[in-house]
Every structure is written in structure tokens, then in C-alpha cells.
């Protein structure tokens, strides 16, 4: 299987451009976050809208249809924020093009080494965030999601960059498509509850003591908005991640001779899984909701990042494909 070098060159260019576009978008969002009058208001607005949508305790005839509020004129900051979203979409398209071109260049699924794996994780994160944006008015927080994405992509594109090449024999299996894509989608989505939970902790700190994060705290959405984003994305990512781990076990049985062998990657995946399971349980345990659940989610996020970097690059195990 020869590698088409022209296509792989185009793939690299779109990767770099995507990172640049994300950086621009991030700057735009930071402007909105800093100068916009959104913050708390936006969060309050959605809350009221949702209550109306739910047909709250109304005593009149029909449940009122959720009427849009009379459109307020957009401020400059808001316009910049909307431009940021447009840029993010553009970046995601370039990012997608980079992945597709890489796949075409090598005639295989474009996730056979660390560089490609990080690229796909970041793509999943960005797309998930765009979906979240459609449901919750948290646009001004986008910079905090794009920041880890840009860092990851920078690290991936510089230190971990790998020239397009065919797969090594151990990876030549259709399980590569299933297992790695599930793991990447799971990990990519997990980034978002991680960020949301971090912001939750900041916000909670600020609400408890307004002197802490006095500038930043009030601009964050309400606690329950952040909590809901974290919960919904985790609930979605957890089964996907579980599926990825299970498929990994099935593949390991065919490739390495056992379905589970406490390889470092397997171990840390197990640890991350247990932590997220603890998060889901904590939401159903009195006294553990809110702050503690957010802390658990952040730990899960840390485990995911640890799994991505430390295990692949530092420890020696069967997953060292970088």
C-alpha cells in the first residue's frame, strides 16, 4: 500500500490551518468572555426559558409556547462571539479535511499513531462543543474548550508528528476502526465535562466567597447549567468509552493472546472508567452532588489526559505506537 504523498501534504496543511483558525476563534471568544454582557444574564435567561418550555405551574388554559424574547440588539462582543463560532466551524471543516486526506493518503483509517489519534480526539471535542452550543447559551466559554484543543493539537503536530505510513502488523485489523474510533470519541467528549466541571468549581468557589475569582466568577453561567453540560456529555461519552474498552478487550484476545492483561493502557483505561462510574454514582448519592461530583469529573479528566500522554509516551507497554 503506497502512501500518496501529495494528499498527505495537503492533510498536513489543513491540519496547520485548522489549528491557526482555532487560535483565532479562541481570541474572539476571549473577547466576548471579557467584554460581553452575557455571563450570568445569559444563564438566567435560559433557565427561565426552559421553565416556560416545561409548562411550569401555569393556571391558564394552554401551556404557553416558548416565545422568543424580543430580540435585543446584539452588542459588538456578541457579534465577535458569533464570528468565533463561524471560525470554529471553519476550523472543524479544515480539521475534518485533514483527517479525511490523511486516510485517503494512507488508504486506511486515519488513526494509527499518536499524532493521528490526538487529531481525531480534538476533532470530536470541537464537534461535541458545537453541539453543546446549540443547546446551551455558553458560547462565551468556548475559549476554555478550545484552549486544551489547541494545546493538544500543537503538541501532536510538533513533537508527536508522524509521517503518513502504513500500519504495523499488530494494527492491521478491522478492530482498529471500531476500537480506536470508540476510544477517541469517548476521550474527546470527556474533555468537555472536564472543562465544564473545572468551571463549575470556580463558580462554586465564587458563589461561596465572592472575593474569590471576583472578576471571572460572575461571568460564568449558573452552576446548574455547568452541571447539566457536564452530566449530559458524560452520560453520552461513558457508554461510548465502555464500548471502546470492551472492543479493545476483544481485539486484544485476537492480537495479544489474552483479552485483559493489565497492560498500562488497559489499567489506566480501567481507572478512568471506574472514576467516571463513580461520578455517575455520586450524582445519585446524597451529599455528593454538586461540588464533589465536579471534583470527581475533573479527576476523570486528569486520568484521561494521563492515559493519552503518560501511558503512551513514558511507560513501555503494548500500546506504544507513537
Amino acid at each position: 500500500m503506497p502512501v500518496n504523498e501529495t494528499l498527505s501534504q495537503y492533510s498536513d496543511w489543513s491540519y496547520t490551518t485548522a489549528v491557526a483558525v482555532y487560535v483565532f476563534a479562541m481570541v474572539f471568544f476571549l473577547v466576548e468572555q471579557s467584554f460581553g454582557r452575557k455571563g450570568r444574564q445569559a444563564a438566567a435567561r435560559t433557565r427561565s426559558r426552559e421553565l416556560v418550555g416545561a409548562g411550569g405551574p401555569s393556571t391558564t388554559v394552554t401551556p404557553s409556547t416558548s416565545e422568543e424574547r424580543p430580540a435585543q440588539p446584539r452588542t459588538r462582543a456578541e457579534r465577535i462571539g458569533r464570528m468565533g463560532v463561524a471560525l470554529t466551524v471553519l476550523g472543524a471543516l479544515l480539521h475534518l479535511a485533514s483527517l479525511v486526506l490523511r486516510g485517503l493518503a494512507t488508504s486506511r483509517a486515519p488513526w494509527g499513531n499518536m499524532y493521528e489519534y490526538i487529531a481525531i480526539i480534538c476533532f470530536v471535542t470541537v464537534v461535541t462543543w458545537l453541539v453543546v452550543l446549540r443547546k446551551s447559551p455558553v458560547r462565551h466559554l468556548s475559549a476554555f474548550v478550545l484552549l486544551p484543543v489547541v494545546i493538544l493539537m500543537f503538541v501532536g503536530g510538533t513533537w508527536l508528528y508522524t509521517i503518513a505510513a502504513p500500519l504495523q502488523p499488530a494494527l492491521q485489523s478491522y478492530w482498529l476502526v471500531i476500537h480506536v474510533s470508540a476510544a477517541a470519541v469517548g476521550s474527546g467528549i470527556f474533555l468537555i465535562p472536564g472543562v465544564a466541571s473545572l468551571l463549575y468549581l470556580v463558580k462554586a468557589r465564587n458563589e461561596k466567597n465572592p472575593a474569590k475569582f471576583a472578576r471571572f466568577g460572575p461571568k460564568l453561567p449558573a452552576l446548574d447549567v455547568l452541571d447539566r453540560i457536564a452530566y449530559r456529555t458524560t452520560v453520552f461519552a461513558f457508554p461510548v468509552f465502555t464500548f471502546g474498552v470492551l472492543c479493545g478487550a476483544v481485539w486484544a484476545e485476537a492480537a495479544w493472546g489474552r483479552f485483559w492483561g493489565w497492560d498500562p493502557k488497559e489499567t489506566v483505561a480501567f481507572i478512568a472508567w471506574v472514576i467516571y462510574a463513580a461520578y455517575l454514582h455520586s450524582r445519585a448519592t446524597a451529599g455528593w452532588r454538586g461540588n464533589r461530583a465536579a471534583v470527581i469529573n475533573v479527576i476523570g479528566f486528569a486520568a484521561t489526559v494521563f492515559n493519552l500522554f503518560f501511558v503512551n509516551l513514558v511507560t513501555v507497554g503494548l500500546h506504544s505506537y507513537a
Partner: protein
Amino acid sequence: MTSTVTPERKQYRPTPARRALAFLRNTWRGLTSMRTALVLLFLLALAALPGALLPQHDLNEPKTREYIANHGWWGQLLDRLQFFDVYSSVWFSAIYLLLMVSLVGCLAPRSVEYVRSMRAKPVLTPRNLGRLPHHVRAEVDADPDEVLAAADRRLRGWRRVQRDETEGTRSISAERGYLRETGNLFFHFGMLGVIVAFALGAMYSYEGQVIVFADGSEASEFCNSGIYAYDSFNPGLRVDGTELTPFCLRVNDFAATYADTGQPIAYEANIEYQSGADLAADTWRPYHLEVNEPLRTEGDRVYLLDHGFAPTFTVTFPDGTSRTQAIQWRPVDNTTGLSEGATKFEPPGITDAEERRQNQLAVTGLFAPNALMHGEILTSAGPQLTNPAVAVDVMRGDLGVDSGRGQSIFEIDQSMVDSGRLERVARENLDVGEQLTLDDGTKVRFDGVDQWVSLQVSHDPTQVWVLGFAIAMFAGLGGSLFIKRRRLWVRVAPVEDADGKRRTVVEVGGLARTDQAGYGEEFAKIADDLLTGDRKAP
């Protein structure tokens, strides 16, 4: 101050039995509470961590020993505390056993509750629906019967019951999403099954590794007849090696393909095997063995793990007798295929042990599949077998094979060299067909090279159970996360308005029983259907 015990309070002395019972009950309650389960989950995650950070005995024994040696008392302490055997350590087992007990303690009452709720009717309609999180109220023209019939139709798929209340008021209680709890129980029982099956697997499974030549000769045959047939063997706790699944195999060839960069693209071996009835009939079946494509036969699996080279040397002794030998050398660099090893020869026709020990020979050194000379230094340009060459030291003297110490087939006994009993008598680079001559006239020729493959045989009777439970677990997980348990009530009451016209007051209330938001939209839709649908009714 004396205590003010009211006289009516019944006094009893806690007997030891009662105290013990209370203690047990409290322990059980504490152990099976969600909070304990959470803490145990955390401990499990924490306890698993050293396994990812420290080398483990059963994964990489040499590295573990090196680590312990390099860390002095600290390494030894960690070793004693089982930090290099994390997953079979006392503390790890304790945590997961406690977690299992906690799980069972949580699941048992939940299952009972589940059965009860599956048979129960939806709960009574609350008196004041207005206090529910979701509530709509309307007056419609249709009469109560029609409204209720329409509601009954609309709520198809919900479990529902109609009840008559006071003064002509009637209501429907409906509930949906019972599969959530089903999924939840499926998930947790599935997990329990996975753990049990995994533990059983650790008892009844085994795996063994063996190196065979890949040329269809006798040295390329392997029979799973006993532990002695293996180079290394890891039995489960209940495996003594006497009842291995009988089968035999023969490796006819091996081919490795590489890209121009030297990156491997494929490893494949053509093998033949016989198992079951074929053994008696002595028929061989062909199989194309590849990475990711193990041979599965009679519940055992055979994997292609590794490959390497076995240079062949012929030694012609001064008396004219010659001996030809090929033994596997081990790769020292997987990217270039450079290998090292020691091929050992006994001098022929010598019966005196002392004299024999002075004339044993070993051909040691490096083998390169794609030789590249840097001056006199042999390196390998790549793993492709295109231009084999060896750089050998020929050692003569006492190999130490009679010393009673076991020795590696890849090395000579260095202590023999150090004590001067084994001496280097030649050092040369040889291409295929070239030979060197020792001072006593002995000739050593490099004839060529054979390839060997390393195979692994694995046996795990419980893995199919693990898979089944894992699938149940995954299916249950989907149900327990995405299905919402929710309730809905409809109450109708006949009223007369100011004009004496008969109308019906319809109230709809809703409650989501899980913390997942999102019931609002569905509720609004149903309530809307119920109210507007009635109004359109004739």
C-alpha cells in the same frame, strides 16, 4: 447530674448477642451504602494505579528485578508490599472483594424491589397536581369519559390505571421507563458475572510460549503434550499441566514483509496442525497464521508472537568429522533485526570428561540479516533477510554445561570466561559460505540462516463467559443511562360554568423519577395533545 430517664421508657440491657447483631447489621448497612461503594470505587482506581507505573512481575520479570535492584531497600519494601504484583496482591483483592460484597448487598434488595415494582400498579394520583414540577390545567367541552378515553389512547405504551375518586372525579395514573431499572440491574449483574468469570479464568487458564523453526523440519514441530514442550509456561492456579488439550502443529514457512523504510507490514506463517480426531487419523490441516489471526482449535488458541534468525554453522574438526548446528539467536534490535546468540558444539569422539571440557566450542556474536559494514564493525541496515552475515567470536574450552547450573541458550557462561577456562580463539566476520580456521585446524563455516517463530498457546475456558456478561453489561448500561423513568397523571372533574353548561376540568401533572432533565419537552407535548385533542373531539 443524674440522667432523667422517663419511667415509661422500656429499659433493657443489651445482651452480647443483641450487641453483636446490631454490630453486624450496622456493618452490613455501612458496607452496602452508596457512599461506601463510592469510596471503594476510588480505592480500586487508586490501587490499580501502581500497576501502570511500576513494572510487574508477571508482565516483565527482568525489568522488575532490575527496578528492585536499582532501588535498594525501597524496591525491596515495595516488593514485600506486593507493589510488583498489584493485581494479585492482598490489598487489591481485598478492595475488589469488598466492592463485590457491597455490590451484592446493593443488588439483592434492589432486585426484590424491582420485582415488586414490576407487579405494582402505578401509584395513586396526588391530591394536588399543581405542586408537581410539571403541571397543566384546562377546561374543555368534552365530557369526562371522552377525555379519559382519549387520554387512555394517547398514553398507549405507558403502564396505567384508571381510578374513580370522590364526587365524579376520575384519574389516570401512568408510569413509563421501567426498562431503566431493568437495564441498571442487567448492568450490575453483568459486571458481577464478568468479575466472577475473570476470577475463574485466573484459575483454569494457562499460556505457554515456544520457539520453533519455520522450515517444516522436525525442529518446527510442536505438540501440546505437557509443560516440558514449552520454553516458558504460566499456569493458572488450578492448572498442573497434566491435562493440556492435545494438538500438534508444524510451521512450514515464515515470511516478513517490510516497507522500504524498514517498517514491518506483515508477518505470516504457513502452518499445519492436527487436533481432536485428526490426531488418531494423522491428518494435517493447513492454516495461514498471522498477527491478529490466531489459530483456534479445540478451545485453545495459537498466536504468532515473534520471529528471529538461527544462523547455521558447520564445524569440521581436525579428525575430519563435522557437526552442523542451527540454534535460535535472539533479536537485540527489532528495527534492524540484528541478533545475538551462542551456538555450542561438543567435540566428537572424546570420552574423557576432562579433555572434553577443554575442547568445547561456542560460536558467539552478532548476526545481521542485511549486513552493513562500518569498517570491521558489523551492523544491520534493516530487518529484511537480504544479505546475511555474522561477526563471530569462537570460544574454546569449558562451556560450563557440566557445572550443574542452568544456562541460557543465547549466551555463554561469562564466569567461565572470567576464570580463564573459556578462551576466545578467533574473531572474524563471515558471509554465507565463508569459513574460518582455528589454530588447531578446526574449521568453522557459516552455512546460512534459518528463521524461527515464537508461538504462544493460550487456553481460557471462561473468556466466552466474560464476553457474554460484558455484552449484558453494555446493553444494560445503555438502558440505565438513556431511559427516563417518569410518571404522568390525568385528572378529570365535571363542572358547570356560569351558564349552566357542563364542562370538564382536566389537570395533567408529571414527575421525572430520575435526575436526568429533559422530561419537560415530552410532558409539554403530551399535555398539549391531551388538551387540544379533546377540544377537537366531537
